[in-house]
């Protein structure tokens, strides 16, 4: 019982650490210039544009600092940049309108695939914890041991290096 308590304490410490802190202007500048693109055509994040004398990034960074100093919210800053440079100035699609689909689809696909995998495992008998086969499955599932052994033998015999590893296999 001591180990779970230690883990609980560590988890609590991590949670406290993560929840502490207030935003600072420099941290916010770093955050925002990594969510905007340089518009010179270099296809780099504003905070990472490395062209000496790049008029676009210098101008954009100056505007960004001014916007932060004037107390604008993140969304207001993004809106101002989009109005001036177009939607491609945002390094990621905004989470509204059709562009919301960009954010939802990956998680929706992951959730659907996860559910599908769990259903598949359940259908294949993996959630039963025993060796019994659920009713209603195809004849492949409910093979009798002799038939299964026969198929295993066929598989072994039609495999090139079955003999090579056979001595060390657990089947």
């Amino acid at each position, binding site marked *: 019982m001591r180990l779970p308590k230690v883990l609980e304490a560590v988890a609590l410490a991590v949670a406290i650490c993560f929840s502490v802190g*207030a935003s600072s202007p420099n941290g916010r500048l770093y955050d925002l210039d990594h969510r905007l693109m340089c518009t010179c055509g270099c296809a780099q994040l504003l905070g990472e544009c490395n062209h000496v004398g790049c008029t676009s990034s210098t101008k954009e960074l100056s505007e960004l600092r001014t916007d932060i100093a004037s107390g604008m919210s993140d969304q207001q800053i993004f809106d101002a940049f989009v109005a001036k440079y177009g939607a491609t100035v945002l390094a990621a699609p905004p989470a509204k309108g059709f562009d919301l689909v960009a954010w939802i689809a990956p998680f929706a696909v992951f959730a659907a695939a996860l559910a599908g995998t769990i259903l598949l495992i359940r259908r294949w008998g993996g959630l039963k914890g025993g060796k019994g086969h659920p009713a209603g499955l195809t004849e492949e599932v409910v093979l009798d041991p002799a038939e299964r052994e026969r198929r295993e033998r066929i598989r072994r015999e039609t495999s090139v290096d079955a003999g090579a590893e056979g001595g060390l296999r657990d089947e």
Partner: protein
Amino acid sequence: MAAFGSFSLLIALALAAYNLVAGALALRMIATGREARISPERLADTARRAGIAGFVAVTAAAFALVWSVFANDFSITYILEHSNRALPAAYKFAALWSGQEGSLLLWAWLLAVFGFVLRLRHKADVKLYAYAGTILAAVQVFFLLILVINAPPFALLPAVYAAHPFGVGPAELLALQQTGIVPSDGNGLNPLLQYPEMVIHPPMLYLGYVGFSVPFAFALGALMMRYPGEKWIKTTRTWTLVTWLFLTCGIFLGMHWAYAVLGWGGYWGWDPVENASFMPWLTGTAFLHSVMMQERKGMMKSWNVWLIFSTFLLTILGTMLTRGGLVSSVHAFAQSSIGAWFLVFMGIVVAVCIFTYLLQRSHLKSERNLESLVSRESSFLFNNLVLLTACFVILWGTLFPVLSEYVEGSKVTVGAPFYNRVAVPIGLFLLFLTGVGPLLPWRATSLRAIRRNFILPVIALWVVVAACLALGVRPWNGGAFDTGSFYAVVAFALSAAVLTAILSEFVRGARVIRRQTRRNLLSSAVLLTRRNTRRYGGYIIHIGVVVATVGLAGAAFNRNIEKELGLHDKMSIGPYTLENESFTQDSNQNYDSEFAVLNVYQNGKKQFQITPEKRVYHASEQPQTMVAIHSVPEWDLYVVYEGTNPSTGQPIIKAFLNALVGWIWFGLVIMVFGTLIALAPSLTPTLAPARVQVAQTEPVAAFKGGD
């Protein structure tokens, strides 16, 4: 040479077409038992020989292009646009793949090489190899058609073609250059490509792309002929693993090239072309895992067939993204209108795959028996789920700008912030599975065994979390929550857990052997690995992935500083102080350069000198950054000569301290080593018992199992 190259391509196309048609006819005759004047076996053999002759013809075309580059034959448009006289010899060779026509020729040549090897080994299984050879011929016909019709590498300058449609000899070329019809020098190679890695990175990547054609051909062929058993998988295992290795090396070399050449301090920008190479790697990796389910349990047959189909299609998509101009990219060095060709080809491939699958799906009936959720089989299912989801996310992010433009009429950018939020958590989950998988046995396990196997990795995980927090690696930056640092801590902790899990597997198995043979633990671990190279080679690859992940996670702690440095001015970053010793200019036949000589001090003592440089190439008049990198295990000191301040004439230097970057490249070395071990044959049972008397009572499960 232009005429020789063009005719070689034409002959290669004719031979590939014959290989396809005759091969298909012969296989159809064999399948239906139909009689003809020529026996189907003989017809199939003529098709195979045509394939071998095709290799000679494509090789001749590739040779002609390389020869033309070295001969400075600027009457050929491709040579004029991608080479110049002062270009060093290695880069002249690299000009073969620096433009669209040349890189498509490289695709065709590599496919011809793979096909040549395959056709020479046809006696291993004449019928299956005949199917695979015919399918490869179909792919070859497509690439040769593009080369002949849409992207001819030997196209002459219009003025030259009008007077000399079959090309010119050396004397005529000289005369045409003197009259100004042919320029006396070429436009040169893109400066970004004039870097040693560019001589090997594209061929590696293309070997990876093209190589997946072979398992695809075997999978489709085996399905077409209703091949019995799992032998085709074992036949193609070496092909698949070697191809995967080439693709892995190609991706990492590309990362290193971007790091050392582009000068922005990073190695991966989620650019469409980078993504294009990563997607088939993900599906190929999923295939290498799930195929074990088919070999050992007879499961997931349909799934595996579709995984290899998808991997092949993604390699074609990757080539299309690089060459077709479907999406904008900083890496697409050669874009044109060939995208439509690729779309049509992909459509045909999808149609053939679906048709064949529907026709033969009864042959793919799989075993469907899982004994437990907590088993190796389940872990492979989840591994595939995560790899495929990652592939979908990257494909989605790559193509979403096109979709958005179609729906809304305006483009959006899908850059690093999107992938960092969506793909990084998936990657961390995959890392978690990398550790869990090896700890789970096939079939089922007990709660007690789980507890025993997981206790050490869990302890390692929490020790690293505590160590990170104690050492100041905390998920906040200047008071605000820092997602990058949070992910880094999670990645470090998971890496420690996975490494512990894998090493404990080695130690467990080695201890059993030590008891049996009385060797020391290291020697026992070596013998353990030799007995089952596939399984333990795979574990070593996982260690490489973990080491590379630690390096990737280090990006959260990168920092940089930019400063104008006059003579003897100083700037500091991390433990280093950089002093401008001198700055000057130089020139040679190929480029002009400006560079600074910087003394680097640590703890007040001079440690070394570095010389960041900026070049401007004469032929193209394009600038190029030559980054100075000093690498130690903890970090890279990465210094860029950004240019000079026009008002003061003094250099502007940008210095980065990039944490743990060297681990990424070291991770690749481990992955290559692990793959080579996995490719080596295991000690055979006839030898193994002679060297080791396996006691029947020993719990030898640790070194059993094949995978």
